[in-house]
């Protein structure tokens, strides 16, 4: 009941010190179809589930190339995601034009976060309803960041967002220690397995998912369906044994996600504010 009184404006605080409009925006992210990201020392892989509204329509594009060294996967309001991708592309182009070198990922995510923050402090705006997994390579190595509608951003070894992402997160938590030194192909395999977790029993095939890779000597690109299907077929037999073992873990309660930053549990009632750290 408190929620309803102070949630009309993004510029209205609740007595508990929360901005409900921002929290509602983060709910929108949770409603979107899943997107996952994981990184090793030299590569970052992004994956997402592609669900078309009906059999007649095509699915929405959720992974965007931002530059040769940066790509982004989104969950939530895809329209907002598209607009933010265009902003990111422009920033990369302008930086390259001025400095003749690629925009460091860390800089880009800060600019993105600042842009999101503006929408949490203007009465005539609304927060962006999209979460972004930004994957990129720069001089300091491979990076994976998560940008919130709240204007916060965190760096991750591996992360998942969107609906049923908890299943993927559980899988990633089990395996994340091996990611750092994993080979590129193993990383893609892990990404596909994580996607499979979010499908909750549905068959994993290349028509329902999209995978993209960026790495040392490998510009950001989306893997074509044929390659993805081949990789799925390759591990499907082995994975079938692992599959049943993963199911029970999917129902485990909220825990901190992969290092370094702890992830907040889904706000059920008046728990800790989601964007609080």
């Amino acid at each position, binding site marked *: 009941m408190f929620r309803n009184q102070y949630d009309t404006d993004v510029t209205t605080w609740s007595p508990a010190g929360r901005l409900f409009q921002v929290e509602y925006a983060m709910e929108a992210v949770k409603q979107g179809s899943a997107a996952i990201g994981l990184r090793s020392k030299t590569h970052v892989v992004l994956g997402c589930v592609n669900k078309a509204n009906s059999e007649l329509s095509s699915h929405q594009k959720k992974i965007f*190339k931002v530059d040769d060294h940066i790509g982004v996967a989104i969950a939530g309001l895809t329209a907002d995601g598209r607009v933010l991708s*265009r902003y990111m*592309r*422009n920033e990369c*182009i*302008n930086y*390259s*034009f001025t400095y003749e070198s690629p925009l460091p990922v860390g800089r880009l995510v800060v600019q993105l976060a600042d842009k999101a923050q503006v929408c949490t402090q203007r009465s005539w705006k609304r927060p962006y309803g999209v979460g972004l997994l930004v994957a990129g390579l720069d001089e300091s190595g491979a990076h994976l960041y998560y940008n919130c509608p709240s204007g916060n951003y965190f760096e991750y070894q591996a992360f998942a967002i969107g609906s049923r992402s908890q299943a993927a997160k559980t899988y990633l938590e089990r395996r994340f220690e091996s990611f750092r030194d994993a080979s590129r192909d193993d990383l893609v395999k892990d990404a596909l397995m994580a996607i499979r977790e979010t499908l909750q029993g549905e068959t994993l095939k290349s028509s329902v998912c999209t995978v993209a890779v960026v790495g040392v000597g490998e510009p950001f690109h989306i893997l074509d369906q044929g390659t993805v299907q081949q990789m799925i077929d390759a591990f499907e037999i082995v994975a079938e044994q692992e599959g049943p073992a993963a199911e029970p873990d999917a129902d485990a309660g909220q825990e901190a996600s992969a290092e370094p930053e702890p992830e907040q549990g889904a706000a059920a009632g008046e728990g800790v504010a989601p964007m609080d750290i």
Partner: protein
Amino acid sequence: MPKEQANWSPYDNNGGSCVAVAGADYCVIAADTRMSTGYNILTRDYSKICKLADKCVMASSGFQADVKALQKHLAARHLIYQHQHNKQMSCPAMAQLLSNTLYYKRFFPYYSFNVLGGLDNEGKGCVFTYDAVGSYEKVGYSCQGSGSTLIMPFLDNQLKSPSPLLLPAQDAVTPLAEAEAIDLIKTVFASASERDIYTGDKLEIVVINADGIRREYMDLRKD
């Protein structure tokens, strides 16, 4: 009282010549590599040729600072195009973009004299020639730069098709084979280097065909 004139100009001319010739299934773009200012040579090894897209290459003579800025601008616009359309720009599309970009600075022009060469969507060679403010035309061959007055008449002699009113209709592209066209260009630059002081040192030749893009070099007079 006579009007006061500026004693500083924002422009400089770094000299050099550029040529492009279109064939049935190839396009050759060439430029010398000498960069000068006044009567001095700044470097003997500067490329005036820039790849704008997979099948589209531009050679520009004039003020190289403006040329560089123009190339960077077009490269950025091409990136945006690729993000939006998921494919490379075609040569005719790039030709129009270049024209618009030049005219955008109609009242403080890029001091850049360009020839654009590449393959159109059907794989046929095409050459576009420009003035500094964007007026352009699709032609079978062209040249720009300090040696253009020496080179153009010779190209006309060798490549010009009879009147476009003549029947049967003649193609603008030359019937020459790729090797013959390259040979012609080498001859043309060797001649231009004899009399034009701003052309010389080395000739850079870029050939675009169905197999891709390749580069060739030839030495020219260094005096």
